[in-house]
């Protein structure tokens, strides 16, 4: 009887296809990843059953820390540049290209506008260690500059489609939240969003 010959198969698997898939997915994840911006203040969000997602573009963001400091941020670099143009015009700042570039990359900030040029000329490490004192709330003072209102109006002027998102800590007192709301209402903004985390109804 003739022995049946078993063909010896190679155990080497062609990895090319797997490699292709791997890098395809890698590319996808690299492109879609949006790293969390550096937080100016630690914020613990309140929970709600709201389901409306935060829009991707055209967002003006206000962060309110637990102690009532208010920070300001725009998501779009063009709007940021336009806002800075307007600020330098109104406050007579002479900013160089470097300072403008720094402002363009600023996700969130909170300080008296008059201190802005100083902050923008700091080097990168000094800037990241800088403790933002929060926006200047001078609207109720006599002769105040209305900085918060100005920021809102000027940003909306450069991008009329801006939506307003407020990210407040859950133990922020209503008083500081209300100060921001009043500033918004003085700028004829009566519609805004509060950023929350999700929870279920049963709680």
């Amino acid at each position, binding site marked *: 009887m003739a022995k049946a010959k078993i063909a010896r198969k190679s155990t080497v698997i062609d990895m090319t296809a797997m490699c292709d898939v*791997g890098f395809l997915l890698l590319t996808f*994840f690299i492109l879609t990843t949006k790293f969390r911006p550096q937080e100016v203040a630690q914020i613990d969000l309140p929970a709600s059953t709201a389901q409306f997602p935060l829009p991707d573009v055209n967002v003006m963001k206000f962060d*309110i820390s637990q102690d009532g400091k208010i920070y300001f941020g725009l998501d779009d670099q063009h709007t940021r540049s336009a806002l800075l143009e307007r600020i330098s015009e109104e406050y007579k700042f002479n900013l160089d290209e470097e300072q403008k570039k720094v402002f363009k990359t600023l996700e969130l900030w909170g300080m008296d506008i008059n201190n802005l040029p100083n902050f923008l000329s700091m080097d990168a490490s000094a800037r990241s260690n800088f403790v933002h004192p929060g926006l200047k709330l001078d609207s109720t003072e006599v002769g105040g500059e209305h900085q918060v209102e100005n920021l809102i109006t000027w940003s909306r002027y450069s991008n009329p489609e801006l939506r307003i998102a407020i*990210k407040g800590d859950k133990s922020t007192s*209503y*008083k500081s939240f209300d100060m921001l709301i009043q500033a918004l209402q003085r700028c004829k903004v009566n519609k805004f969003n509060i950023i929350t985390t999700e929870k279920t109804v049963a709680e």
Partner: protein
Amino acid sequence: MAEMEVADKGKKGNKRSKKLSTRVDLTPMVDLAFLLITFFMLATTMNKPKTMEINKPVPDENEDKTEEPTIKMSKTLNLMLGDNNKVYWYVSPDEIAVGTGIELDSTDYSANGLRAVIKRRQREVQELHGDKNELFVMIKPLPGSKLKNTVDALDEMTINAVSKYAILPPKEAIDSLVALQINQKRK
């Protein structure tokens, strides 16, 4: 694809020259690719934050109170958000006469607390006016309350399908009495 044709530098003299395989082992490369994928998958925040939309009533510029449409107080519910996660609720009477008392009670933000109050009020409005959607809830946060309280109160509006509600400053005369009663600052 991974194999490359390498021109054979045939050494004519040596017939035994080994033909080197041009196959590259891609296993380490795949390993690396998947390692990076894992990293990026974990670093990505897929869930977008949710937001709650708030519409504030447009403040009337000219302070002209004569045009203001009045709501029957029996259709309303006042929620005053105080400190220590307490909510005080009361119903203003339609007409204030001598000896009119208002019921003031406090509760918390749990399902048995605020939600039960709203449900009960909805039933009462249903009986009185025939439609529970007539209920108008006035949310009046006191400065001592936390943002979380406002969010919770607004959330209850959504959960109980209250269509008419507003965040108002505690400005009315009755509010100051209530604030005094519960011993909290109004401003």
